C-alpha cells in the first residue's frame, strides 16, 4: 500500500497553519465567552470588521460569479467559458464563507435560520438574508457539474446542465438584488453615515462596484491560479475584461462625482480629517489610478499590468466597503473602533480556509479548463447506453 507523503511545509502553508491556530483560539473564546470577549464592538459601534469586511467585502469579492455567468450564458460570449468555472467556485466559496462569518458575528447564531420562517419584508436585511440563501443554492447547483463529472453521475449532470440558463438568470437577479441591498442597509442612517458615503444612490453604487470588483477578481484569480498551478494565462480574454473594467469604473466615477456634487458633499474635501484622507485613498487607488492605467494598451495587454490594475481596484473596493461600514460611521458614534486581534484572526482564518478549499477543489475536480482547446467534457445525448454505476 502506498503511503502518501506528508505535504511539504512551504512558507505559505506555514503562514496558513499559524493563522488557523490563532483563529481556532479566537473561535473557542468567541463561543465560550461571548462577543464582548473577542471583539471591540460596543453599544456605540455594533458592527465592525466581521460585517464590514467578512460580509460586505466577502459578498462583493464573490461577485465575479454572476458577472461571468451572465457574460457567458446570457450574452453568449462563449470565449469566456474558460474562466467561468473558477469564478463560480470563488463565488460559491465566498458566499459559503460569508455564512460562516455570520455564525461568528450573530449574537445567537443558532437562530440564523429564523428568516426562513419569521418574515419582515420591510427589512432590507430580511431581503439580503433570503437572496443570499437562494443564491448560495444557485451557486451550488451551478458548480455541481464539476462534482457530478468527477463522480460520473450522468443523469443528474444532464438535469443540472439543462437548467443552466434559468439558473444563471436567477443568479444574476439574486446577485443584483443583494449586492445593491447591502448598500441599501445604510440608507436608514442618513444622519450617522458621513456625506462622502451616504447617498440615496447607495444601492446603485454598491451594485456597480460589485460588477467592477467581480471583473477585477476574475483577472486576479486567473493570475494567481496561473502562477500556483503552472498554467498559461488566457490573456486575450483578460484584455477584453480590462476594457470592460474601464467602462464600469468610468460609469461609477461619473455617477459618484455627480452625486457628491449635487448633495454638496465635495465641500468636505476642505476638511483635513481622517474621512477625507481615507475617501481620497479609496478614490485614487480604486478608481483614478486603475482607470488611468487601463487607457494604455501596453498595460491592458500586459499580464503584470492588468494584475496591478486588478489589485488596485480590489484594494479600492475593500477601502470603500470598510469606509462605508466603519470610517463613515465613526464620527457619529462618538467612539473610535479598531478590531481586536482576535477579530482579525477569525477573519484571516476564514480567508485562509477559502484559499485552501479553492486549491483543493482545483486539484481534485475539473475546475480549470484543460489547456487543449475544444477538450470540454461532453454530456452524452442519452445515458441509457452507459454502464450502470457500480
Amino acid at each position, binding site marked *: 500500500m502506498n503511503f502518501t507523503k506528508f505535504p511539504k511545509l512551504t512558507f505559505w502553508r506555514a503562514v496558513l497553519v499559524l493563522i488557523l491556530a490563532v483563529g481556532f483560539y479566537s473561535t473557542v473564546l468567541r463561543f465560550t465567552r461571548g462577543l464582548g470577549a473577542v471583539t471591540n464592538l460596543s453599544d*456605540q459601534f455594533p458592527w465592525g470588521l466581521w460585517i464590514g469586511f467578512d460580509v460586505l467585502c466577502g459578498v462583493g469579492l464573490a461577485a465575479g460569479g454572476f458577472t461571468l455567468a451572465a457574460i457567458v450564458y446570457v450574452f453568449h460570449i462563449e470565449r469566456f467559458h474558460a474562466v467561468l468555472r473558477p469564478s463560480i467556485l470563488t463565488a460559491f466559496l465566498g458566499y459559503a464563507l460569508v455564512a460562516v462569518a455570520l455564525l461568528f458575528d450573530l449574537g445567537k447564531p443558532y437562530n440564523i435560520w*429564523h*428568516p426562513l420562517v419569521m418574515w419582515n419584508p420591510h427589512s432590507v436585511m430580511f431581503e439580503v438574508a433570503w437572496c443570499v440563501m437562494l443564491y448560495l443554492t444557485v451557486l451550488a447547483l451551478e458548480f455541481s457539474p464539476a462534482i457530478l463529472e468527477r463522480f460520473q453521475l450522468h443523469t443528474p449532470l444532464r438535469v443540472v446542465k439543462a437548467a443552466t440558463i434559468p439558473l444563471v438568470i436567477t443568479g444574476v437577479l439574486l446577485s443584483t438584488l443583494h449586492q445593491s441591498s447591502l448598500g441599501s442597509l445604510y440608507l436608514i442612517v442618513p444622519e450617522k453615515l458621513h456625506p462622502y458615503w451616504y447617498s440615496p444612490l447607495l444601492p446603485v453604487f454598491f451594485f456597480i462596484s460589485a460588477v467592477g470588483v467581480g471583473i477585477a477578481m476574475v483577472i486576479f484569480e486567473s493570475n494567481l491560479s496561473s502562477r500556483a498551478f503552472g498554467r498559461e494565462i488566457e490573456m486575450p480574454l483578460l484584455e477584453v475584461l480590462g476594457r470592460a473594467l474601464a467602462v464600469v469604473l468610468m460609469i461609477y466615477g461619473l455617477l459618484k462625482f455627480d452625486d457628491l456634487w449635487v448633495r454638496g458633499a465635495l465641500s468636505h474635501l476642505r476638511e483635513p480629517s481622517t474621512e477625507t484622507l481615507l475617501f481620497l485613498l479609496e478614490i485614487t487607488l480604486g478608481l483614478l489610478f486603475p482607470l488611468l492605467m487601463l487607457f494604455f494598451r501596453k498595460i491592458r495587454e500586459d499580464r503584470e499590468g492588468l494584475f496591478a490594475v486588478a489589485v488596485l481596484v480590489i484594494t479600492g473596493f475593500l477601502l470603500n466597503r470598510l469606509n462605508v461600514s466603519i470610517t463613515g460611521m465613526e464620527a457619529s458614534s462618538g467612539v473610535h473602533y479598531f478590531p481586536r486581534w482576535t477579530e482579525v484572526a477569525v477573519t484571516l482564518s476564514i480567508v485562509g480556509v477559502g484559499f485552501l478549499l479553492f486549491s483543493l477543489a482545483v486539484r481534485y475536480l475539473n475546475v480549470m479548463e484543460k489547456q487543449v482547446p475544444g477538450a470540454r467534457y461532453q454530456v452524452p445525448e442519452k445515458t441509457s447506453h452507459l454502464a450502470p454505476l457500480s
Partner: protein
Amino acid sequence: MSKSILIDTTRCIGCGACAAACKVVNRLPFDKPDDEKNRPSATCKDDDLVAFAQSVGADELGGVLSAGKLNVVQTHGSIFVRRFCMHCQEPTCASVCPVGALHKTAAGPVVYDADKCMGCRYCMMACPFSVPRYEWKALLPRVKKCTMCAPRQAKGLQPACTEVCPVQAGIFGERDDLLKEAEKRLREEPAKYFQHIYGKEEVGGTSVVYLSAVPFEQLGLPANLPSDPMPLLTYRVLSKIPSVVPLAGVLLGGIWWITNRREEVAKAEGKE
C-alpha cells in the same frame, strides 16, 4: 389608543427616582451595591416602589444607556435630561429587524421578543436615537431597551418611572392628551420654554415627547431629524423590487434568446 410619556425637563430636579424604579421592575443591578440590601421585589406595591426609588435615586444618577441601564438621568449644563426609548410611532428598529423581533404594540410601547432575535444588531445600527443596547458579555445575548413597562401597563398600572416621579416631570397618558398639555404649557408660559415639542413630528412622531427651556441639541437629543419616518428611506427602494425583478428577468431571458438565435443561425450557416 396610544400611551405616551411627556418629559418636561424644566420640572426635573434630578432626583434619580425614575432610574432606580426602572432597575427595580426590570431586575437590573444597582450602581451602588449597598442599595441591593433593601431591593423590593419587581412586582411590589407601588407605594413601596415610590418610597424605595425616591430614597436611593441619587445613587442612580448619570451614566449611559446600557444593557443594565434602560433609563438614564444625564446632566447637560444645569439641566437634567432623562433618556430612554422614544417608542416611535413608526419605529425604525422594528422596520429593520429581519425577523420582526421588535414591534409597535397598539397600546404604545415598542416591545422586543428575545426568542425571535438572532442578534444581528441592525436595530442598534438603525435607531436614530441610538437606544437599543446589547448584552455583550452574555452567551445568549439579548437586545435591551425600555419597554414602557408594557407588562405593568397590561395590569392597568403606569410605567414605574412616571409612577415614582415626585414632581411630575414625567407624566403618562394618551398621546393626544399629552400633546395638548404640552401645547398648553408652551402657550401659557412662552418665556419658560423653547417653542417646540420634541417628538411630536420627528421621524414620524414618537410616543415619548420632550419640553425644554433650551434648544434640544443642548440636551443631547439628536437634532435635524426628518419628520418622515426612517423606514420610508428603505421602503422606497424595497417596494420597487416586486415590479423590477420580473421585468429584469424577462429582459435577461430575452437577451439570451436573441443571442441564442444568432448562435443557432451561425451554426446552421456553418454546416452548409
